């Protein structure tokens, strides 16, 4: 697989990003799939999805966050505190879930103890929890405010043409990643879930143009290839809390299964829902970023989410679904529980694990559970 993509997927910083910086480009960080990255693109800047990888502890995070809080935002703050986000020119804080939105305050306060970690541009971005005409109108307005703030801070102008161009570019990315999903669905798919996740992750740290180029090259290759060894291999779908590195997927695949699809943040959430051209780009953006109700922080849409998961399950003709949530993530945790119950009733094999955020967190325990689950579904498959 392409080295640049792999590096972008596994490292916080990557050569293309550094190059972009050297050429005087500006990088804006954001923590949540509800942020319309197109706006940043349109401003000629690089949208960078904040990640908690490469942390060894959450000591800095724990200084400001209380206990009982998801370790994902803590890991993000850890990286910020350690200066690993030094290349950021700005950050957009999102009222995503409560753990994530408190990153705003905690990061700012950490700035007093760790000078220089708070970029000048530090923007709080609101996201409604429901989809109605007036919430879309409000959100469109919130996006306009974001654009205005960027224009003011960086002395740029964002025209509707810029936006439409950025939207088209991101749509292209979405189309490409959907092709990847198609490839993963093939019984003799040449690509493992681990590789696929890497390809998807790379998107969050690369300039779109380059990314689209590299990705379509990869896809052309993959579409020609096939891997008979994967025929008949157990196939699982991964759902639940945010996942920004491949370790969990590779653990599952090391136990013999193939992860053929997901609905996690960073994963499928990042490329669903192409944006149709037309009317006011702010409104179309608002509609897209509210309407993709993947995340349980959009309350009252669990039916849609379950439908999405089962759709992935069937389309990928998978044998089971693995639900995972980060400890203290009630949003995904309780919905996982709900769905597990529902799917049990219709006989879809599921498993639920709770984990700490982070690379290879708690390998032993999780491997034991995954192995047990795969054993049970293998028995079923053979019986059938």
């Amino acid at each position, binding site marked *: 697989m392409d080295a640049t993509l792999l590096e972008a997927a596994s490292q916080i910083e990557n050569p293309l990003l550094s190059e972009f910086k050297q050429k005087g480009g500006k990088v804006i960080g954001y923590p949540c799939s509800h942020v319309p990255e197109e706006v940043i693109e349109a401003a000629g800047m690089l949208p960078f999805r904040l990640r908690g990888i490469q942390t060894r502890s959450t000591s800095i995070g724990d200084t400001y966050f209380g206990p009982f809080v998801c370790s994902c935002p803590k890991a993000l703050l850890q990286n910020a505190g350690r200066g690993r986000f030094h290349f950021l020119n700005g950050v957009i804080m999102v009222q995503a879930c409560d753990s994530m939105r408190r990153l705003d305050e905690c990061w700012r306060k950490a700035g007093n103890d760790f000078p220089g970690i708070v970029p000048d541009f530090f923007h709080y971005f609101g996201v409604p929890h429901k989809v109605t005409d007036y919430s879309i109108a409000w959100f469109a307005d919130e996006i306009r405010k974001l654009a205005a703030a960027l224009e003011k801070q960086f002395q740029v102008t964002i025209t509707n043409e810029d936006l439409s161009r950025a939207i088209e570019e991101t749509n292209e990315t979405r189309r490409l990643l959907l092709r990847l999903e198609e490839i993963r669905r093939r019984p003799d798919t040449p690509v493992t879930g681990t590789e696929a996740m890497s390809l998807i992750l790379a998107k969050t740290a690369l300039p779109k143009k380059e990314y689209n180029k590299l990705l379509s090259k990869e896809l052309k290759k993959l579409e020609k290839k096939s891997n008979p060894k994967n025929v008949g291999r157990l196939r699982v779908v991964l759902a639940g809390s945010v996942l920004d590195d491949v370790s969990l997927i590779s653990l599952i695949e090391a136990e013999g299964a193939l992860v053929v699809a997901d609905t996690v943040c960073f994963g499928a959430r990042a490329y669903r829902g192409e944006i149709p051209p037309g009317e006011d780009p702010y409104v179309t953006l608002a509609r897209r970023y509210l309407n993709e109700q993947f995340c349980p922080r959009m309350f009252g849409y669990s039916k849609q989410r379950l439908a999405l998961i089962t759709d992935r399950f069937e389309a990928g003709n998978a044998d089971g679904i693995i639900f995972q949530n980060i400890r203290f993530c009630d949003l995904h945790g309780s919905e996982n529980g709900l769905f597990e119950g529902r799917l*049990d009733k219709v006989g879809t094999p599921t*498993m*639920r*694990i*709770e*984990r700490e955020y982070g690379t290879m967190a708690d390998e*032993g*325990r999780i491997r*034991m*559970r995954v*192995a*047990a*689950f795969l*054993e*049970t579904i293998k*028995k079923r498959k053979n*019986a059938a």
Partner: protein
Amino acid sequence: MIFAGCDVGSLTSKAVVLSGNRILGSAVIRSRTMPEETARKVMDEALAKAGLSMKDVKGFGGTGYGRDKIGFVNHVNSEIACHARGARWLVPNARTVIDIGGQDCKAMRLAEDGSITKFLANDKCAAGTGRFLEVMAKALGVPIEELGKLSARAKKPVCLASTCTVWAQADVVSYLNAGETIEDLGAGINNAMANRVATLANSVKPDRDVCMTGGVAKNQGVVRALEKLLGYSIVIPRKADPQLAGAIGAALLAAEAV
């Protein structure tokens, strides 16, 4: 034909030597950091009890942490598979198995043929583990074997913080300081444990017979409290020490593989 199984558990390691349906010898020792070494030690003990030596054994089954590191083992299976198999041997018509070990607590639902249809393990705070009981027993100054008996003698069990082992221990200390009796505290501890296990058990929608394996099955206090919470009786293996379930399963699977 003679088969042996060993289960290198997180806390203890167990070995059994089986001839058909008879246990010739068995052993339970504390796990050491070197699984290979531990496995040998416990297996040698079991063989010694059976008056046999390695060469008399047709096949060795192994399971547990570091199972693939054990040289002499020639049939490796996952803990779940072994515990389920062992439980079925101990309690032939078991449909639900609750296994409480040192480091986790598992609940499994089995189909007629003994294959696992649903499996859950405790992911939350460590209150639902045997370790929890050990830490508490230590705080109370009673041997782990005695902890279970306390429940029977308790007058009014205390309600204990059931979320965290170590904080529950802090609570135990302050209760002791507040002059609560060892019995009432012991009962409180067993109940807290039972509460956690009950929710886990209920989440797999248990069918009869429900049987319990793992070391904690030897804790009467927990078992009784659990029965009260679940509202039906739990079968405790008589055929052999419930702590051996994993090892027995390993031996049987080895035998069946041949």
